[in-house]
């Protein structure tokens, strides 16, 4: 079980839920579970090959999972996973 923080731009795909508790052992399992529970999230999180998209960062605590074991990064009940996609607004 870990807590996943859904960013504002993706909340429309999670019924506006900001935090989701997911029963899983790794970050990869969390992503799979999320995309099963919220199918519309899938194209925003994963590319055609099933890898995390390069404009989406996933952090376990304050560490980028690319600096840990990527999708194999283990999680436990106190882990907070943050999904942080690129956003570009600011001027208009």
């Amino acid at each position, binding site marked *: 079980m870990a807590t996943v923080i859904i960013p504002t731009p993706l909340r429309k795909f999670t019924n506006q839920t900001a935090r989701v508790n997911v029963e899983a052992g790794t970050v990869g399992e969390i992503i799979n579970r999320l995309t099963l529970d919220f199918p519309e999230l899938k194209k925003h999180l994963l590319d055609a090959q099933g890898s995390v998209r390069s404009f989406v*960062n996933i952090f376990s605590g304050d560490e980028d999972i690319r600096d840990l074991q990527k999708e194999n990064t283990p999680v436990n009940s106190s882990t907070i996973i943050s999904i942080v996609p690129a956003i570009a607004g600011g001027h208009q």
Partner: protein
Amino acid sequence: MSIHDIQFSKEELARYNRHIIIPEFGEEGQLKLKAAKVLIVGSGGLGSPALLYLTAAGVGTIGIVDFDVVDDSNLQRQILFDIHEIGNPKVEAAKRRLEALNPHVRFILHNTHLNSENALDIIKDYDVVADGTDNFPTRYLVNDATVLLDKPNVYGSIFQFEGQVSVFNFVNPSGERGPNYRDLYPTPPPPGLVPSCAEGGVLGVLPGIIGSLQALEVIKIITGVGQTLSGRFFTFDAMNFENRTFKIKRRADNPLNGLNPSIRTLIDYEQFCGMRAVEEKPVKEISARELYDWQVKGRPFKLIDVREPSEFKIVQIGGELIPLATVADHAEQIPRDIDVVVHCKAGVRSLKAIRELEEKFGYTNLYNLKGGIIAYIDQVKPELTRY
């Protein structure tokens, strides 16, 4: 300019007293600010508070890049501007406001669209860049240009209730260079997947918060006071009032400054961001000169202007105003039996309008004015107001 060449007047010492009496900041910090040259890319939601605070703080030289004009829809969050400036170029409106705030600051205006041709030339003269733009191509452009020119880039970005801040390409006092935007996000989302603020909206206070944080980081970089956000990535969720600070690192596969750099000059960022990958069948085009020819020869045709009413007020060339968002609802006003020329400011919105009309209503008589009203003004009627 070295800080040893600078002397403050009595007025400046009085003005900056609240900075100078901070022990870690002192007169030296204030002198560093006055010696510094900062470029703010975009004077909109993020640029407004950043420019106001950096001007108030006494940065010596501030450059502003913006190609846009003030629109009343900006005033919900772009606190640099007021109703008297609607229709005026943002850089000029910004300068008027900022000079009234602090006459000791020199402003350099770049009333242009930052692009691969001009970015290096504009950025090279500055010490620090703050990126407050609103689209992925310009984000990557500013990032790459600052890395190629070895400048720190204070990044801020917003969407709806979410804000992000970091400091990119910053070399710390130990000589270690921090990550840049390509380390954080190697590639942008494909067009259409992530809506822009113009489509998705943004809470007006949020750019005030994020742009102010950018100003803070600019001041810290210049003065050397405190720890910058280099190597860290700050996110703020205004909806739930939650902030998080993540660690970010340089990546070996960064094409700019990783182990095997492949980008040594600026590239085509529209293409990089996939903007051209969605090319559909071409629409018919007409040049500004051809349009003028049609007009003077009295050829029967109809001219449709798909810009916003505020732009129409600034300048128009005889077209019927049907803003892009309302084109489908007003299709009955667009004839099928004569040629119809559609124009906007630069030719992009009119292209969208034509595609929509062709797809939904099967029009075959529509021409896009290449380069929009700007091309028409440049090539045919230079006496008209350009914006």
